[in-house]
């Protein structure tokens, strides 16, 4: 080390050009001294973008003195990695406001960098999960003013999803029946939604059949999610027979058309739900497109 220092110093005197001198100085500085001059952060490296490699080695040069000029072959590069196509690591953030579909106040969540930066950190919905912030916001859940938090981050979204659906209830054409929770449960299951019977609330007035006046008419069923959030779902009566000759011909895309309510008092709510679904076709729209 001492030798290199002396060499470096000899260089100072021989060539007193500023750049060569400081280059030598930087190279000969002991590590401790370097750390004093250059902040500690210098030694951290995070690599992204094009990482290249020389195809031909540069010949060894003297630690002091002018370097030999580079030749064209020293600018011949090979790609090692293009880090722009590498999978991006998620960013950890602490939510300071409830975010639908993600979490409530005080939750530490990992999200994709773009969402974290542009949709959570910039609007002020979250802060970085740095050690200081984790300590500062550790009691955020207890002190939060918003007590009425959703039962789960996905509950509200599930309710929203359910309320856009139309469930077709297949009822017998011959034998008498009254709509019971298990009918609705089976209808939900046929539509790919598993619902326990306790979560279903049917209309107060009983619906009995078979009654072809009820064919393709709607009523509302209330579904409770996690015993907290409630979603209204449209259910439609369809009379079904095992005998193919007696069956009512199937109407394609029947869930995209509006239907009449069984109970007139539910008409308004049913219409609102139909309008929420962007696929619903209304009679006035059909005329306009014709």
């Amino acid at each position: 080390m001492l030798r290199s220092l002396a060499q470096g110093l000899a260089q100072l005197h021989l060539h007193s050009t500023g750049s060569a001198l400081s280059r030598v100085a930087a190279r000969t500085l002991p590590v401790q001294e370097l750390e004093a001059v250059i902040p500690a952060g210098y030694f951290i490296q995070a690599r992204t973008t094009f990482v290249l490699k020389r195809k031909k080695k540069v010949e060894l040069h003297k630690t002091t003195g002018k370097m030999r000029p580079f030749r064209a072959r020293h600018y011949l590069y090979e790609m090692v990695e293009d880090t722009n196509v590498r999978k991006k690591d998620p960013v950890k953030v602490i939510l300071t406001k409830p975010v639908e579909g993600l979490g409530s106040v005080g939750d530490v969540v990992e999200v994709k960098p773009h969402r974290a930066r542009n949709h959570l950190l910039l609007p002020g919905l979250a802060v970085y999960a740095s050690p200081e912030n984790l300590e500062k916001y550790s009691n955020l859940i207890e002190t939060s003013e918003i007590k009425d938090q959703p039962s789960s981050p996905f509950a509200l979204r599930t309710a929203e999803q359910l309320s856009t659906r139309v469930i077709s209830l297949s009822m017998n054409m011959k034998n008498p029946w009254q709509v019971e929770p298990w009918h609705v449960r089976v209808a939900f299951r046929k539509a790919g939604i598993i619902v326990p019977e306790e979560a279903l609330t049917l209309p107060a007035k009983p619906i009995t059949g078979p009654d072809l006046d009820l064919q393709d008419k709607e009523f509302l069923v209330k579904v409770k999610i996690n015993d907290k959030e409630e979603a209204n779902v449209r259910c439609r009566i369809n009379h079904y027979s095992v005998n193919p000759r007696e069956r009512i011909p199937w109407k394609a895309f029947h869930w995209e058309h509006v239907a009449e309510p069984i109970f007139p008092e539910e008409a308004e709510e049913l219409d609102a739900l139909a309008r929420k679904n962007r696929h619903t076709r209304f009679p006035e729209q059909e005329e306009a497109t014709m």
Partner: protein
Amino acid sequence: MNARVSASAMREALTKPWMALQIFQGNNALSRVPEHYKKFYWEWKVAPKAPVHYIPEEGNFKKLPNGEIQPVQNLPLKLLQPKEIHEGIWGGEAIIKGFYKRKPYVRRMPHYWVPTLKKTVLYSEILDRYMNVTVTERTLNLIDENYGFDNYILNTPPADLMSELAVKLRREMLLSLAQGTLHPDNPAKRKELLNRFEKHIIPVEEAEWYGLNTKEAATKQKLIEEKASAPVPLKEAFRQEFIEYLKTNKVDMEEIKGEITER
């Protein structure tokens, strides 16, 4: 010749490389700027940069397969810095000019490796400002690693910021921290930020010099010198002299007043 160098001179040359920079050796205003500015300039323009576009070899020496021992010399790739680099914050990335060669019997082809740039909005807590800046993915990653834009700008050495815009922002942050002028209408926030960035609070005099380029520094030095050596009007000198005279001779003020009124 080596023997002539004293230990103290040797030490200064190695621990304070900025004092020996050629640009400060002339007989102009730049040679008289304060030492902390010279140090900043060295850190900005001369200090070694973090490896971004290459993977440095580890260690000081390596053993070749034939048993020979060779020193490890990491030569950084040459970078082009267009003027646009100083209008955005590229996080240490720059343009690489070179050649590529895909097949052994094909002539090498010239190529420029240009970083992917994107425009984004960055928020600075100290300045309380949203900024529309051209950045690279690396900048955004570094900001995330540092837990915020302010931390990134303040913790990264100026050589690795590699952008005049970033250095100017750092200057503004350091000034507002030193003067305590951040968040004028929110004292609680101001106190919290001053606590958090305590280690970045430097004297106001140093902060005023930080982030200036050589032209601005020379102008500032000239202005300071002009102000110091401005001629004092004679009336002020005479007034001072007269006051001294009155003090030493203890003249009776009543008598003088009488003389003046008689005339």
